[in-house]
């Protein structure tokens, strides 16, 4: 059925500052069809979906919806045109009730002429939508009482409330239980039968193969495969997803120099925090890179925050070189030579309008002055900053005047790394160190990390790119729903096995 395409993209391209993230993406989806979209993190899936939903504007290329040109200027315009976007990043307002969230801006009115809400009709409509996704809560409860999975269902219900022609699901099942997922799939089948075009983005290859009529595989901002599901298997999908030759990107593989130490740089024994992580054991010794893999929402970033003392933990022990670190004591961690690069450098890491030098100097200022009230040893600081800029191969006209905002993502990331390196840390915790960084800068960052461990530092790196971890690490721990589910040593590295462990399936795909 359905020959005419409902939504068609032709040659859509997009760049963020200097980094090109989409290179002429073209595909189409027909009414009554499910297009499964797969690709690694950073392959451009989310950017493409954001362009369709009107959140981002394409630099080049055209979109047509039911044969007519489609250029949404914002999310609202796209919704009016019939695009429902169910996002992975939830936009649930915790201070609003479930029904307010569901029908925000679209609440039924008492009469067409007056703006008064019909509480009764809203309640009825909300109940219908909640029943459709199988979320059994009172529509009047504050959304803050919902669990992550329930919020995801709420987000889906909100998508259903839009009178849509195209529905985009971006990783809708990451926090759902099996039962909830099944119910969602029944709902998707029903929507498909009613003539909607569905774009389904997911890392869950089984789901994709089960649901889709056609497949789209993306890699590095390009479409690698677009066609009927036919004889695609999980094997072939994974090959298409990760198929690039990547050997050149990583430093030559090193001998593991780490020794089994009595007192490792970092040790976690049975660390737990209610509803966040459970019974985490891990060790990082001098001279090794340990990786943590896992899907978004698996608790990897939360674990990093607990280790660094930004969030508390209830049970278990964290020690650095044998010294016990109490829950939430950031100062003790800094003192023990620990450094942490957050995944969100724009909000948590960098002062965008300050210069590279100011940003890098920030954490190291105490080293260049004997107390808060004495003068800073400016000359020594300047020299150290210049040396660091050279070591990082920072591409920046003048590190003391150009604002960080004007630099590329890769150079911004180098500055955050430089800030912590100036403090001469013993242990570095890096959360997504190469997110939004172009390939050239990635290579330089990898080389830098290899050099650092060669000097005897320890590194704990969290990444959603498995190839990054297999290229860099001595050991990889895989997290799934707040637990470490398996550990791989360098000899056992296998992208497929790591990926399936991250999905919570222990058997090989």
């Amino acid at each position, binding site marked *: 059925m359905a020959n005419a395409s409902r939504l068609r993209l032709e040659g859509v391209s997009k760049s963020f500052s200097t980094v090109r993230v989409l290179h002429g993406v073209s595909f189409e989806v027909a009414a009554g069809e499910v297009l499964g979209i797969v690709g690694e993190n950073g392959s451009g899936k989310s950017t493409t979906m954001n362009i369709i939903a009107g959140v981002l504007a394409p630099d080049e290329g055209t979109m047509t919806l039911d044969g007519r040109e489609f250029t949404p200027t914002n*999310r609202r315009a796209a919704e009016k045109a019939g695009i429902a976007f169910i996002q992975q990043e939830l936009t649930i307002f915790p201070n609003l009730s479930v029904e307010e969230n569901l029908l925000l801006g679209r609440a039924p009115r008492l009469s067409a002429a007056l703006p008064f809400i019909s509480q009764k009709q809203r309640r009825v409509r909300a109940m219908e939508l909640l029943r459709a996704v199988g979320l059994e809560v009172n529509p009047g409860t504050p959304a803050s009482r919902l669990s992550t999975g329930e919020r995801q269902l709420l987000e889906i219900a909100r998508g259903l409330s839009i009178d849509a022609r195209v529905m985009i699901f971006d990783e809708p099942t990451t926090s759902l239980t099996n039962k909830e997922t099944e119910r969602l799939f029944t709902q998707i089948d029903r929507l498909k039968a009613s003539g909607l075009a569905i774009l389904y983005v997911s890392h869950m290859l089984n789901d994709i193969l089960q649901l889709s009529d056609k497949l789209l595989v993306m890699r590095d901002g390009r479409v690698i495969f677009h066609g009927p599901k036919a004889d695609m298997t999980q094997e072939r999908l994974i090959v298409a997803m990760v198929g690039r030759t990547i050997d050149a990107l990583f430093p030559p593989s090193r001998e593991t120099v780490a020794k089994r130490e009595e007192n490792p740089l970092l040790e976690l024994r049975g660390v737990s925090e209610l*509803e966040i992580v*459970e019974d985490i054991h891990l060790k990082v010794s001098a001279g090794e890179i340990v990786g943590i893999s896992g899907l978004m929402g698996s608790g990897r970033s939360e674990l990093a925050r607990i280790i660094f003392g930004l969030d508390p933990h209830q049970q278990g022990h964290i020690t650095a070189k044998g010294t016990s670190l109490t829950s939430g004591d950031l100062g003790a961690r800094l003192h023990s030579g620990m450094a942490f690069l957050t995944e969100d450098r724009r909000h948590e890491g960098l002062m965008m309008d300050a210069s590279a030098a100011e940003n890098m100097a920030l954490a190291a200022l105490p080293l260049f002055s004997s107390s808060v009230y004495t003068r800073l040893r400016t000359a020594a600081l300047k020299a150290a900053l210049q040396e660091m800029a050279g070591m990082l191969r920072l591409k920046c006209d003048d590190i003391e005047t150009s604002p960080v905002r004007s630099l590329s993502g890769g150079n911004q990331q180098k500055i955050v790394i430089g800030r912590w390196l100036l403090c001469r840390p013993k242990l570095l915790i890096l959360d997504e160190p190469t997110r939004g960084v172009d390939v050239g800068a990635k290579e330089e960052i990898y080389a830098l990390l290899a050099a650092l461990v060669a000097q005897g530092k320890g590194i704990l790196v969290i990444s959603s790119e498995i190839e990054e971890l297999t290229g860099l690490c001595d050991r990889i721990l895989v997290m799934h729903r707040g637990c470490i589910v398996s550990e791989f040593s360098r000899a056992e590295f296998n992208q497929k096995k790591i990926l399936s462990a991250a999905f919570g399936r222990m058997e090989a795909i």
Partner: protein
Amino acid sequence: MTIKSIVQILTRILRWSPLLFLGIVAIIFAGLSPRFFTIGNIQAILVQSSWLAIVALGMNFVLLTAGVDLSVGATMYLAAVAVSLIVPAAPIWIVVLVAALVGAIFGGANGLFVVRLGIPPFVATLATAFVGRGLGLFFSANHVLNAGDHLAAVGREFWLGVPVVIWFAVAGALVSLTLMRALEFGSFVRAIGADHEGARRAGVPITRVTWSVYVLAGAFAGIGGLISLAQTASVSPAFGLNAEFLAIAAAVLGGTSLFGGRGSVWGPIVGVVLITTVQDGMALINANPYAYPVTTGIVIFIAVALDSLRSRLNTRVERKRIRVVEPVSA
């Protein structure tokens, strides 16, 4: 008992803390003075509360969007000067209209700076506060203006056995309640306060709503100024001075968060009554007048401390959960 359930119980208690706090203060003063729990005194407290209640209800909208309006005191002054000069003898409904209009225009200017020019509300309204007071001083030529007799009468008269000024406060509360509960405006305001960027993505008309809250704060402050004028019967250059801080304190005491998104309509009213009760009680026990500002300061301090405790508990409750315990029933 798990930590989680303790947190939940605490959050629930804190929700009712404004009333609880008011009850405690009332009981203390009742113990200190036999005249406290008399109908006359309670009515006096409500009458004294009414103007501030109206101003605080307007401020409440702005606070809910995570903004602030430091110019409401100046708006009160400007509106009071305007009605004294422009419509000294007009019928009362025209006077009310003029006061609201002057306030709304002033609030509209605040909204312009915040929405169109992107100036942080704190700075924008701090500047307009000085401008407003300056304009008021200019038009009144630095004189004390007296309210007309019919206006002063509003401050004394009763309707259905209840002082008219209290009816004004009740009307303000009803308008607030309608905007916050019966219209989508309320959901929009709280959505913006909780997550500005998220609200934009969810398609909330941010510009229009943000502008409206400043216009509302201005209009409410204008009427609050009028009621205060009816009670004091004259406008001195210090009229409405520091009213913005009392209004903010009252809203926060009533559970409105300075971080935005959280608050009710009844909360600020309870907050205002609480502040007035403290002042009234101090007078009843013949406390040293110099102790009034100190006590008010302590009350405000407690309010802000409560707010940060509340928001800290909320971040705990709202933290992302990764290990969702699957329901046992299958």
